[in-house]
C-alpha cells in the first residue's frame, strides 16, 4: 500500500481536529511516513477552541487507500476527529509570498485564475507579492514567474479548506 504509486491517483484532502499540544504533528506525520505517503501540503492552526488545532493535509492516492488510512488517523490517540473532504465540494485556498525581480509584477498580473494579488513591498530591486487562491492558481503563478526568469523565492502556507454544506 503505497500512496505515491499506483494508477488511480486522485487528490485527497484530510481535515483533522487534533489536540493542541507538543508531539501531535510528529504522531500524525509518522503514520504517513511509515506508509511512504508523500504529503503535498499541510497547514496547521488553532481552531475556535484554544485546546484544539485543525490540520489540513493533502496528498494523492487511490480512494480505497484514503478511506483505510482515515481509519488509521482516527485511531491515533491525539486525533479527535477525521474528515475526508470531497475535493469537488471543498473550498480550497492557499497563500503565497513571492519575491520577484523587476517585471515580476506584470507577469503575475497576466496569470489567469481565481486568485488575488497584492503588492506588499516594492523597490527598484523588485517586489514581494502576496497571492491568495486555489493551489492550482498558485502553481500556475509560480510556473509563469519561473518561465519569465523573475522569481527569486516563494513561501506557501499549504492548503486550507472547508467543505461547502
Amino acid at each position, binding site marked *: 500500500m503505497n500512496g505515491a504509486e499506483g494508477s488511480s491517483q486522485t487528490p485527497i484532502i484530510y481535515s483533522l481536529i*487534533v*489536540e493542541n499540544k507538543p*508531539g501531535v504533528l*510528529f*504522531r500524525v506525520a*509518522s503514520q504517513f511516513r*511509515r506508509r511512504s505517503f508523500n504529503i503535498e501540503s499541510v497547514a496547521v492552526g488553532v481552531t475556535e477552541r484554544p485546546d484544539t488545532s485543525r490540520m489540513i493535509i493533502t496528498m494523492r492516492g487511490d480512494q*480505497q487507500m484514503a478511506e*483505510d488510512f482515515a*481509519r*488509521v488517523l*482516527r*485511531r*491515533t*490517540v*491525539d*486525533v*479527535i476527529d477525521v474528515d475526508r473532504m470531497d475535493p469537488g465540494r471543498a473550498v480550497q485556498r492557499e497563500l503565497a509570498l513571492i519575491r520577484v525581480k523587476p517585471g515580476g509584477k506584470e507577469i503575475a498580473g497576466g496569470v489567469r485564475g481565481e486568485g488575488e494579488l497584492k503588492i506588499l513591498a516594492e523597490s527598484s530591486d523588485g517586489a514581494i507579492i502576496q497571492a491568495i487562491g486555489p493551489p492550482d492558481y498558485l502553481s500556475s503563478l509560480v510556473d509563469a514567474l519561473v518561465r519569465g526568469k523573475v522569481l527569486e523565492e516563494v513561501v506557501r502556507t499549504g492548503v486550507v479548506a472547508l467543505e461547502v454544506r
Partner: protein
Amino acid sequence: MNLMSGSRALIKALEREGVDVVFGIPGGAIMPVYDELLNSDIRHVLARHEQSAAHMADGYARASGRVGVCMATSGPGATNLVTGVATAYMDSTPLVAITGQVPTSMMARDAFQEIDAVGIYTHVTKYSFQLLRSSEVPYVTKAAFFLASTGRTGPVHIDMPKDVQTGEAEMSFPDHVDIRGYRPYVPPDPAAVARALDLLLESERPIILAGGGVIKSGAHDYLLQLAESALIPVATTLMGKGAVPEDHPLSLGPVGMHGTVQANKLVNEADLVLAIGVRFSDRTTMEVRGFAPDATIVHFDVDPTEVGKNVKAHHAVTGDLKASIGLLLRMFQERARTGSWGAWRRRVEEVVSQWRDAVVGVKSEFSPPHILRAMREILPPDSIVTTEVGQNQMWAELYFKVLRPRTFITSGGLGTMGFGFPAAIGAKAARPDVPVVDVAGDGSFMMTMNSLATSIDEKLPVVVVILNNSSLGMVAQWQRLFYNRRYAATIFGANPDFVRLAESFGAEGVRVYSMDEFRNAFRTAIRSDVTTVIDVPIHPEEDVFPFVGPGRTLNEMLLGDGRE
C-alpha cells in the same frame, strides 16, 4: 498543602491500579522511583537485561489478563527495553513501560544516558507520554493504564525525567480519565451482527478462524458455544491457540505457514470464513490471493483499521468481541437450533480423522513432535507453555494442544528470539500455582538465558526444554530447502554445556537421550521448586512440517516426506 514527590505519586498510582509486581532494572535516571518502591508492597523482580524485563511483564500480562509493568532507566535502559515493548505491541499485550529520563533541564543536550525515548517509543506503543511536571503523574499513570487495557489492548510508555520524580506537588488522583481522541467502548451494531448471521446461514461450508483477540476480549466461551450450537469447525491463528480447547472434536488447530493439514485444507475449501479477532498476518494467510479463495470473509474485530488491511472483508463487524460474539450467539440460537451443513460436516470429519494424529517429516521416534506430545500428556490442562521463536515455536504450534485460554504464550507478530524464557518467568509470577514451561531452541535460549539468575533469585521456578540442534534451526531449515544447503552463519561451533550452565546459576540441569528419559526428567522438573533446564539433543537436520513455503498458498503444503 499536602505535597508529594513525583516518584511517590507514581508508586501510589500503581498501587491504585492494583499492580502487585513490576519487572525492571534500576539506573541513575530512575533511582528516586526505585527508592520509593522500597516503601511499597509492590514486588520488584530484578531482570538481568531490560529486554527480558519487558518480556517478563508481557508473560505476566498474557497469563493473567492484567496490565504488566516494566521499568528501566534512561538511555540504554530505554533502548534495551524497546524490543520487549515492540513484541508486546505486535501481539497487543497490555503493558505499561516506565523509563527514567535525564532532568528536564538537561534534555536535548545529549546528556549522559539521554535518548529521545518518546521519539522511539511512539512507533511501538499505543501512546508514549513524557511527563514534564510532577503534578501530571497521577493523571498520566491513570491514562496509561486506561489506554493499555481498553479497546485493542497494547503497551503504553511513560518517560519520567528525574526532576519530575523528585519534584513535589499537590497531587490529585483521578478515578477515571477521559481522552477525547480515544473512544474504546464501541458497541457492535446489531444490524451488522444480524447481517453476519445471514451470511453464515446462507453458507454451505462455513469455518471459524479465531485469533488472539478472542482470548484477549474473553470471547472464548461464547465462541465455543457458537461453534458447538452450529457445529462449525474452528481453526485458529498462532495467537488464537487456546481460544477453543484443541482436543475438542471441532478444533482444527492453527492455520498458516506451519498450520495443520486439516486447518489449511479446510480453510481453503470453505465458502465462508468467520474471522474473529484476527489480523490476517502473512504467516497465517500465506499468499493472500490463494487464501480461502471461494470464501465470503466475515470479519469481527475491535480495531477498525484491521478491516481490509490485509484481506478484503465482504462484511465486517467492529467493536468489542465479547459483546459482538455474545450477540451473534444469541441471534443464532433464536433463529436456528442447528446448522444445516451435513455434507460439509462429513467432509470436515473425513479430513480431520485422516490428519488429526499425523506426525509428518520426523527423523526418529525421539523427534520434537514426540517431545511436545509427551509434554501435553504429562502437563495438567491449566499449565502454561511459552515458546521461543523459530523451529521450537512452530513444533509447539503444531504438536502441543492448548486446552485453556491464556496458557500458550508466544511472540507471534514480532517473532522475538529470547522471548520465551523471561515470558515464562513473568507468567510464573502471575500464576505461581501452575507449572510453567518454556519450549526453547538453543539459539533463542542463548539470547536471554541470563534470566536464570532472576528465576533463582526471585524463586520463580520454570522448566526450560531446549530442543537443541546446535544451530539457528529455522534459518538452517530454509537454507536446506531454498538455499541449496549453504549454511550461512547458522551452525554453532561452540555451544555451552547447558546442564553445567544451569547448575552454575543454582538451577537444575539434565540432558536426555530418549523419550523415557525425557518423560522422567520432565515429570520431576515440573514439580521442582527450582528452575530446571532440560537439554534435548535433537537431530541437527530435523525440519518442521507441514510447511507452506514463502509466496505459496495454504494448499501447497510440504509434508517433508516428498509429499505435497
